[in-house]
């Protein structure tokens, strides 16, 4: 089973880079997830100032460039997990949140390789 896990921290985004301690803790957890064979991919987002929003509404496109200071809980990163069950994904994500900081991770089951 594959799960897309999208992380939105409670803290507003800041310019400050992660601390050495934060990077080490995250590096250790990512390493553990790799070693457990469950991590297919994981990336952190750069600040929203480098991003954009593309919208299709009423047949018309609109593009809004970041930053998006008014948005609570911007997406900060994602992880793609391959695990045996949703509870297992949730357990890993709890460990991830403990390291990444307060906020929410939306855990979504993906369409998967069909049987055979």
């Amino acid at each position, binding site marked *: 089973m594959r799960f897309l896990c999208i992380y939105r921290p409670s803290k507003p985004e800041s310019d400050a880079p992660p601390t050495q301690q934060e990077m080490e803790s995250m590096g250790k957890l990512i390493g553990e997830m790799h070693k457990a*064979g469950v991590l297919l991919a994981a990336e952190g987002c750069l600040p929203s100032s480098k991003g954009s929003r593309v919208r299709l509404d009423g047949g018309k496109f609109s593009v809004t460039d970041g930053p998006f200071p008014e948005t609570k809980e911007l997406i900060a990163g994602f992880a793609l997990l*391959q695990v045996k069950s949703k*509870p297992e994904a949730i357990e890993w994500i709890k460990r991830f949140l403990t390291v990444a900081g307060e906020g929410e991770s939306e855990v979504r089951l993906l369409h998967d390789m069909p*049987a*055979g």
Partner: protein
Amino acid sequence: MPPTADDETRRAIHAVWSIESARLIAGLARLVRDVGIAEELAQDALVAALEQWPAGGVPDNPGAWLMATAKHHAVNYLRRGTLLARKHQELGRALEADHESEGSETVERIIDGLEDDVGDDLLSLIFVACHPVLSREARVALTLRLLGGLGTDEIARAFLVGEPTIAQRMVRAKRTLSEARVPFQVPRGADRVPRLSSVLEVIYLIFNEGYAASAGDDHMRPALCEEALRLGRILAGLAPDEPEVHGLVALMELHASRAGARTGRSGEPVLLPDQDRSRWDQILLRRGLAALEAARASGAGPGPYQLQAEISACHARALSAGETDWAHIVALYEELARLIPSPIVHLNRAVATAMADGPAAGLAIIDSLRAEPALRDYHLLPAARADLLAKLGRLDEARAEFQRAAALTQNARQREQLLARASACAG
């Protein structure tokens, strides 16, 4: 009815078990020198977790909690005299010391130095579970149980046998390991290559069982592919200098990447050249190519798994069937045939040769294989021969071969396809 807090905790406990059980068993096996006893102690810790965590919640470090509990139970076993005398001694020594301190063991550890304990324990467990003294079925069952954390029922459903069969297989396997006094360690030196070969064979076997599963089967069967992939990835992390480990992982990732395209709308098998490539899983495909790079980087000349992965990668890189580099594939099969001169490899080489150099060239190779006893009941031989005969306009012969192939295949839909091709040959 919404799930109770208890239900959620129970689910969380099983999730923790999925994550922690292999490392737990490995660490305990290092202590007690017996995987059977290690597994029992781990199970005791799981039972304790099921009893205590619903009230207090999942502890902050569940792995450490389980290990501490398991060691505590080991002491209880000791006191109740449950273990045999020899084990009492070893266990007593180990627990009193509470760390590895037996002479040569320490020296070896200092010399080896770089590997961390957990990795070494897990690697040792993988090698022990796949020990060649065990039958292939026993190795598979033990690996899925000790490393995959799968229950006896799940393993039984995956292999379409009864639970008692699997249970017995595992009891016998653990006894065999005990009696043979298989040491709990990572094999080195001359032993390394054949032992690693056995591990790779087990993992690939599990993968192929899963890959052979069809739509109607119990969901545990295709789950075997994921489990084999997971075990392969873990092994690649623990033994990164072994090119054939990366080769096997590459092969499995690439095969798995095509799983979504292998079956047509009515459940009929779709051959690779006819597959809808937009249904190939790009994440797995790219991972497969990356693993292949890791295999190449490990230096040594390509082994059989790496070569098979190279062949698979040729297909993966072709955006359409027409762009396939068949000449390269033929060269790879020739290399593979030198390492594994099996009739099946030659048959695949023949098919590739037909694509690269025309049907007559491929047919020449197939004709030389017709007497091979190993291929006598293999439906793909007459099927391939029929296909080439048809391309050469020898329709009567082609029809006879398609009919022969149809009679040999076990798969009903494949039989229909072959019979349809036979009819199409009738003028």
